[in-house]
């Protein structure tokens, strides 16, 4: 191998390792997104339907005059 090829190999190694690290982090981010989606689903299952959530109106106090 020539000196230039050794130089290229050294710089390529740095590039490849950093790229591999970024890919690993990207994979982890995909997993985290999946986890967030799963938790959002769990929260949605626990929440009561919208019609049940609406609080019934409290009766107005009757005021008698006279």
């Amino acid at each position, binding site marked *: *191998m020539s*000196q*230039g090829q*050794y*130089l290229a*190999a*050294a*710089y390529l*190694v*740095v590039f490849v*390792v*950093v790229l591999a*690290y970024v890919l690993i*982090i990207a994979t*982890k*981010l995909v997993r*985290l997104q999946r*986890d*967030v989606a*799963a*938790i959002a689903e*769990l*929260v949605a299952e*626990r929440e009561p339907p919208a019609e049940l959530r609406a609080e019934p109106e409290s009766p107005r106090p009757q005021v008698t005059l006279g």
Partner: protein
Amino acid sequence: MWSRNNVVTALAALAAALVGVAIALIFFWIPDDADQGISQKIFYFHVPIALTAYACFGWGALKAFLHLWRRPSGADLESYVAIHQGVIFGILTLVTGSIWARASWGVWWAWSSTQLVLFLVLFLFYSAYFMLRFSVEPGPARANLCAVYALFGVVLIPISFLAIRLANDFIHPTVFTSEGPQMEGSMFFAFCVAWAAMLALAAALYHVELAGKRLDTTLRELRERLA
């Protein structure tokens, strides 16, 4: 959260810009070394990467010390992530150094070089940190054990750095002596830019990994509460 994201973005942009400038300086501005020729240009990434690995191990040890002293929340995780970064930069140091050794000395490794062997010892010591961490159940006991281990390892950093000066190692070159850097001004400038680039890259990766780990922990806690 907003400011944390901004820090990561700024560090990543700074790292990208500095790496670009460093590569331009190394390949288009500074002259080839009179003795080693073009292969000497490995120096401009190899040495900054090694110094960044030391910095990461040092940062990890500092966080470990803080964990043992004041016990701030998250210091254990920060120490772990810093040591992880140090090991990654350590791998890069060993591989780029090995390639440079082959180009300059004709061998991939020289056991007679104290600097090389001590760096390998430091690297293996911190690699064993992960074996310790993942063999103990998560909790305060694990955090304390890991912090003590990370603190012990930091002693190896000055020894590894000074080994070449203490042992009269003639194989591994000494560039930084008590009389200053033994290189031209332009070479030293390119070296400083490359070092700043590596530090910025390490800082950006450290914050990204830390954010990921914190998010992971929060999500796990949320899932446990919902289960």
